[in-house]
């Protein structure tokens, strides 16, 4: 059974239709990349999955229909979202931000150890533990957003441009951490990225979007060698 199964998903902002019936599926434990130019509908797809938009069509998560459910209920099923723009709670401290990530969890001891684990992944966050999160740099806030999502102990992570605003060295570090988490904890990941080369390296499957439709799907290695993809998104 697929972990996530999306069929004929439409979404709109007001009267403007942004997704025109997209279909895709993700296997449990996989990393799937959603590629495409600006405005292709990648961020919108993630938002639609989380119930942040009006949608038509069907979304099944672990066999259960989650279309048109409230965001907070979808999160409770174990779907964590690293949103576009990072979604930092600017006036709260770094630690409070992380604890909020685990808000729906009841296993207190595991939350404490997960908190330490996040500080292990991102030592910078530990240094800034008591600092107001609004004073963190863009890169630090990006690490915070990823860690906050991980604090949910999710089954599926939706990552919207996790590399945004990070120095190249940090991007590699972050992707390395994501792979470790994926392998060690079987957390599935749906990754939206501008940096197609890195995304294809990390992901095992990928979908290519253009103006609200999925135009190409396949294994990452296949997409990497596809001429059109190479020319338009990988740049060589």
């Amino acid at each position, binding site marked *: 059974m697929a972990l996530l199964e999306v069929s004929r998903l439409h979404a709109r902002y007001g009267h403007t239709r942004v997704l025109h019936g997209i279909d895709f599926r993700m296997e449990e434990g996989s990393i799937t990349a959603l590629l495409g130019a600006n405005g292709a509908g990648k961020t919108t797809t993630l938002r639609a999955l*989380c119930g*942040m938009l009006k949608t038509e069509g069907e979304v099944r998560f672990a066999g259960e229909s989650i279309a048109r459910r*409230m*965001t*907070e209920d979808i*999160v*409770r099923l174990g779907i*964590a*979202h690293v*949103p576009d723009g990072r*979604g*930092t*709670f*600017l*006036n*709260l401290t770094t630690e*409070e931000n992380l*604890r*909020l*990530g685990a*808000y*729906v969890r009841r296993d207190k001891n595991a939350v404490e150890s997960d908190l330490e684990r996040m500080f292990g992944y991102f030592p910078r966050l530990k240094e800034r533990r008591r600092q*107001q999160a*609004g*004073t*963190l*740099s*863009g890169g630090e*806030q990006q690490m915070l957003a990823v860690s*906050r999502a991980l604090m*949910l102990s999710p089954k599926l992570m939706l990552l919207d441009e996790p590399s945004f605003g990070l120095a190249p060295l940090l991007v590699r570090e972050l992707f390395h951490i994501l792979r470790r988490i994926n392998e060690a904890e079987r957390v599935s990941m749906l990754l939206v990225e501008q940096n197609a080369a890195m995304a294809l390296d990390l992901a095992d499957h990928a979908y290519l979007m253009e103006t609200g439709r999925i135009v190409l799907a396949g294994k990452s290695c296949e997409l990497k060698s596809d001429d059109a993809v190479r020319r338009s998104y990988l740049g060589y």
Partner: protein
Amino acid sequence: MDVVLHQVLAGLATGGIYASLALALVMIYQATHLVNFAQGEIAMFTTYIAWSLVNAGVPYWPAFGITVAVAFALGILIERVVIRPVENAPVLAVVVVFIALLVILNSVAGWIYTYTIKSFPSPFPKEPLFGIRYMSPHELGAIGVTLLVLAALYAFFRFTPLGLAMRAAAQNPQSSRLVGIRVGWMLALGWGLAAAVGAVAGMMVAPIVYLDPNMMGGILLYAFAAALVGGIDSPMGAVIGGFAVGVLENLLGAFVIGNELKLTVALALIIGVLLVRPSGFFGKVHVTRV
């Protein structure tokens, strides 16, 4: 000197009440970015409930507890039934709803309890507490109750997961939903807490100003001034502002402008702060990166 000291201490007692109500205003403001003009009337109405209970023979402190619980429920009910439908309405529409609430609660209280002024009991003994001569036992007790309420609220917001979730929901609803917080309920809970705090303020001030449907009009103005002086988005500022306004009002009333013009102090403060320092003295300048 004794007279000044007495005025200052009495000012602290009423200041505590302003502080509580100002805090209730700030709590709603942080969540909705609007000033709840009906906050005083909610406090007045619940104080009448306490009066009914005491008159029906319920001992003071149980009546106090029941009233706080009823106020909490009333606050949640008002949010769910009246405020929620106008959640996304233009600012002015919501302000009109607040004013309507003010008028409705005021009239209903007058209709049920009449406009005759009633005395309200104080739970504190008549003899001076701890041998303190400068303050009446009720003033001293009111300060104690106020400080307890403030400390409890501080602990709740600072140290409990629910308090943290309420703060998160107030400042970033979208991110809050993404971590599973039921934002709508957090707002309702905020209304409940604000109403409960207001109820305590009402019961503490009623023995001083007597109970009538218009008793909170002036007090709400002072509370509003207090919240503005402290910074309308700063809970700590509202509390300090409350005590400061209470003392200032008393000193000016006793020595400078006379009791009849006391309310002018509140109005002058409101205008003065808005003109000179709109963010108040403790209003945070939030640091954000571009």
